[in-house]
């Protein structure tokens, strides 16, 4: 489905900007810059307003992520359960810091602030799959899986 169709499909909903940006990112893996003025025109908003919405929210990407996205929960419950050391370990193994993509575009490593798995902490999400009770062995396995 093309961008214009996606925008048109959701444009009748009240307050549709986030809905459309989510749909675009779902289709393309990111929100192409060219889509911003198209959304603006369809919703009768200024380009600046739509750009402002796009940049306000952490979820929206301006370029594609790596082939795999590994999100590590960095919030307090996971910190209390040893998450700091595991995050550092993942960073070292992948050679990138949180918020970055490996040079070969295979893995994007991101922090996430709470997956709601706080009683089975530390937790992570690999391409939408949830993993709890992380330890060194499990984080190594996740990193290896993401690198494949």
């Amino acid at each position, binding site marked *: 489905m093309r961008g214009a169709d996606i925008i048109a499909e959701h444009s009748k909903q009240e307050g549709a900007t986030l809905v459309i940006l989510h749909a675009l990112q779902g289709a393309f893996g990111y929100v192409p810059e060219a889509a911003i003025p198209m959304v603006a025109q369809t919703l009768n908003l200024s380009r600046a*307003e739509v750009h402002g919405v796009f940049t306000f929210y952490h979820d929206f990407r301006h370029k594609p992520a790596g082939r795999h996205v590994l999100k590590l929960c960095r919030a*307090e419950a996971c910190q209390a359960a040893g998450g700091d050391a595991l995050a550092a370990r993942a960073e070292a193994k992948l050679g990138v810091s949180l918020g970055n993509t490996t040079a070969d575009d295979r893995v994007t490593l991101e922090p996430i602030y709470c997956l*709601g798995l706080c*009683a089975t902490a530390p937790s992570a999400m690999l391409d939408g799959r949830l993993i709890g009770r992380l330890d060194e062995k499990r984080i190594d396995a996740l990193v290896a899986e993401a690198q494949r």
Partner: protein
Amino acid sequence: MKMRIFVPRDAAAVAVGADDVVRALERVAAQRDLPIEIVRTGSRGLCWLEPMIEVATPGGRIAYSPVGPEDVASVLDSMASNGSHPLRLGAADEIPWLKRQTRLTFARCGVIDPRSLDDYRAHGGYKGLERSLSLGSDAILNEVTASGLRGRGGAGFPTGIKWKTVAQAKADRKFIVCNADEGDSGTFADRMIMEGDPFVVIEGMTTAGVTVGATKGYIYIRSEYPHAVEAMNAAITAARRRGYLGDKIDGSTYSFDLEIRVGAGAYVCGEETSLLESLEGRRGLVRAKPPLPAHHGLFGRPTVINNVLSFAAIPFILAEGAKAYADFGMGRSRGTMPIQLAGNIRQGGLFETAFGVTLGELVDDIGGGTFTGRPVRAVQVGGPLGAYFPRALFDTPFDYEAFSARDGLIGHGGIVVFDDSVDMRKQARFAMEFCAVESCGKCTPCRIGSTRGVETIQKIMRGERVSENLALVEDLCNTMKFGSLCALGGFTPYPVLSALKHFREDFVPAPTTLQAAE
């Protein structure tokens, strides 16, 4: 006869292998030609025992836990023969950790099939709405007010008063908004109820719609909760198909429908006015109050905006009467609170109980201390904006006013436990960092104050003019507390100041003994 086996679909159970257990069950049962039916439920909330699976027997459900795929063959033997097994916990309802609870809101969670409206109804679902439809608006308002229910999102505002304000407002349209942007670390009750008993949220919101005269509701769910989004969408479709949403709900003259909107990773959108901005498709900038959302809310119309747990408490109150709910609790905190035990804790999970239980009972007795086995040093209650309490305050009862009297808050009921390896300077700095990243930017104390807070705590950590910088942080916290527009900037001082107050030794270096000059 088919053996009915219950396996949670709850995200926390899935994260520790519940789906693998289901695949193993299907495989082993097929090999043995054993007829089984797998029901995917929510979680009972004993997260440390997940995956916990159950089998239906004439004498009730028998639980096994924690079950891995490698255990499935022998567990199936035990289930088929009713024989002993090392993982067999016995009757699920008799598990002490569950029996000690007072489950009013979470009564069905982990028990029923969250995709089945029939199952929901068979367990008392929609009894409250049916009574509401015969009572009418004024009588419902009386019930909700008499129940003493206060906003479970954290602010603790009386729900009955909020609803009454919207009911009395005149407008062409009114809205019901459910705040499911559960961003606080250490909290997962909203997620659990949406995944485990989504119809109770729908019923609560529908009741609100009937009461105030709103025909449209939105559930704003954070994007970090894809399983909850899926469960709520499935439940909405089922409710619509059966006439519990849409025109003339349940054969009455009322109409009400729901739509899910997904957030996009902004913590501040859990603040109600920021959430409304986000729902309208804008940046999640906090609005100044007044006007209150009850007068001027979504799209400028009168709006009831409540937390998931507030709506989920409503069906019980209407079905069983306000008194049945208000009989639980202490002081002005009536009813029950689904408390979430998290972080470094041996027995973490969801524990719903009447207000009044002490922090010490929750952490040491119910939670069993830390899973690392080291002493508990600090607990953060109420999410990233909640205070850190030391052991000395473990006699604090779980109650809105009692926590507030000790410069803390119960917030959304999350308790994060830390052992003695915690560095409270790091936790204080993190509170400021989080605020700096998540600030919507509208007010200066929050936007700038949080960044200056990070820098100043860094200086303290480097040992630069420690006492002066500590005084500066305290002063800054006061500015943020009284000068911020919303709870993000206004409450970030709670974790910082509580760390400074109760764990001072982490900030001030131990006095070095002077070496005698030679």
